[in-house]
């Protein structure tokens, strides 16, 4: 350890805003981003609500000066990463800089444009629609855009991917292998994920209600969230302000089921425990938890049980911001890391929209309104299919 690892810049695009500032405004106004599908064709249009970023690919490509066939996953990522890098205001080329991005769908949205023609006739379909299919491609496009050469990596551990990306970045800086890392995640909505989650029967036909007794499932969302994390030396030499420090993280495997969490939340409990151990903080020091809180019957009981067991009677303020953004899958950990940093910089906690009645299984009452309050330490949880459980702590 050579001093703490600092967050020097943040960037986000989600259903509630194209920038950090817009998202913050939506939180203050309690404005949810959940609504009908408008930007792509689907049999679920008008039936399943989603957290769509209300900007078309053409518009995104235009404002970013990128080719029109760029995948939505890459466009969202570049928008958020550019904001984070500009916010940090550090010339990345002067330092050993890495890029670690997480995604689960990759360029699926463009592949879905390619396939209908190609399936009918194998000589048809535009190849530039599929060259970006692989998960690693959006990371390469980002690296080109940001001019990052030193270290580029893509992580896919489902919905905990981007917390793991930030944890890996922190570790590489701690071990002196890199000075700066742009880390986070990105995922665009696609028919593939919508149909898939629908087949798992965990999508709510109403806007999702995390931790509420009447919850019926999640709403899928899309977006990207990135943080620029830097070593203590970079912060000093560049004379920048630390927005937050990464004080701990933990990752475990629930080892229970491919998609379901163990009812008692064993994996999430030990992820929180590992993160807290690394931070050397007292359990009562956590002021706010940004919950994974997808709104599925399984997750919220499992996570709630683990949180209750971990924090005991003195529960911190907590909320799931997925009622605003939808579940953005591989991007959720990155987007929620940005929100966690915002809680510290703006000294506030975010509401858990649409919560009314506590679950009968575990008595958790999340934060219900936007509130300005003292926040020194924030925990953010992200759990994924495959049993992958991650928890990260940001401190002032």
């Amino acid at each position, binding site marked *: 350890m050579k001093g703490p690892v600092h967050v020097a810049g943040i960037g986000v695009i989600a259903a509630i805003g194209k920038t950090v500032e817009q998202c913050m405004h939506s939180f203050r106004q309690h404005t949810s981003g959940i609504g009908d599908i408008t930007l792509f064709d689907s049999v679920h249009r008008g039936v399943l609500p989603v957290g769509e970023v209300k900007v078309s690919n053409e518009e995104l490509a235009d404002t970013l000066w990128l080719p029109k066939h760029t995948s939505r996953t890459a466009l969202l990522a570049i928008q958020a990463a550019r904001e984070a890098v500009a916010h940090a205001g550090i010339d990345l080329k002067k330092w050993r800089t890495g890029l670690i991005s997480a995604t689960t769908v990759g360029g699926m949205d463009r592949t879905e444009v390619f396939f209908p023609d190609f399936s009918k006739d194998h000589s048809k379909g535009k190849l530039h629609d599929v060259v970006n299919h692989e998960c690693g491609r959006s990371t390469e496009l980002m690296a080109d855009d940001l001019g990052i050469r030193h270290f580029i990596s893509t992580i896919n551990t489902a919905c905990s991917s981007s917390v793991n990306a930030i944890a890996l970045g922190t570790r590489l800086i701690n071990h002196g292998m890199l000075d700066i890392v742009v880390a986070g995640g990105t995922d665009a909505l696609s028919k593939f994920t919508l149909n898939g989650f629908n087949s798992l029967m965990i999508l709510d036909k109403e806007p999702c209600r995390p931790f509420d007794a009447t919850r019926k499932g999640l709403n899928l969302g899309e977006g990207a969230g990135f943080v620029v994390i830097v070593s203590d030396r970079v912060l000093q030499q560049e004379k920048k302000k630390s927005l937050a420090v990464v004080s701990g993280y933990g990752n*475990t495997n629930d080892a229970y089921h491919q998609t379901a969490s163990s009812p008692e939340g064993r994996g999430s409990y030990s992820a929180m425990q590992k993160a807290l151990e690394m931070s050397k903080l007292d359990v009562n020091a956590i002021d706010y938890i940004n919950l994974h809180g997808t709104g599925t019957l399984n997750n919220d009981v499992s996570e709630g049980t683990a949180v209750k067991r971990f924090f005991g009677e003195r529960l911190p303020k907590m909320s799931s911001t997925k009622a605003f953004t939808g579940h953005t899958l591989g991007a959720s950990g990155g987007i929620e890391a940005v929100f966690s940093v915002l809680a510290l910089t703006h000294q506030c906690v975010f509401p858990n929209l649409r919560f009314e009645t506590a679950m009968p299984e575990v008595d958790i009452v999340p934060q219900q309104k936007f509130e300005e309050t003292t926040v020194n330490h924030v925990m953010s949880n992200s759990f994924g299919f495959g049993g992958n459980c991650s928890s990260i702590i940001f401190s002032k």
Partner: protein
Amino acid sequence: MFISGTSIIRKQTVIHKGALAFENKSVSLDDFLTGAYNYLSPEYPKFYKMDRLAQLGFLATEFLLSDFSIKQYSPESVSLVLSNAHASMDTDVRYHESSKTSSSPALFVYTLPNIVSGEICIRHRIKGENTFFISPAFDAELLAAYVDQVMMQPSVHACIAGWIDVMDSHHDVFLYLVEKEQRGLALPHTAEELTKLYR
């Protein structure tokens, strides 16, 4: 940090610690996988429900740990670091085909590469840190450096790591076990050694 064992599945041939363990090149990949399962007969019917990536991971780990009890370590002290090039593409394509009639939930759950990690963890009661990298090709430098960092944590005693890739009939699996003490192959955990072993 030492490499105590390896297992390779390539061209429908399983190599455990450098020696031929199972082979059947005259059948389809699926039949080869079932054949290897029957050869080991671990009585784990869930195997039949797994996709090819998970079956390959299951089998490679089964061979890797065939002469060693991973349970001597606590579940939390064993980590898993996997990587590949095609993520879950092999199953993505099949799921896409199935979705033309009706989406199969059992196929959809395998459209993530780290489901194989979950299957290995469930089978061997592993609860430590899990990571899954997507790289264009086997990256010995990345694995050596990252696994070393994972292993440097006092609470971690062992790590199963490697490369596990499948697309159609092409498959390439190289898993290895790293421990803090010298045991088994007892090779140094370096990028050079990994490159040699992978070849």
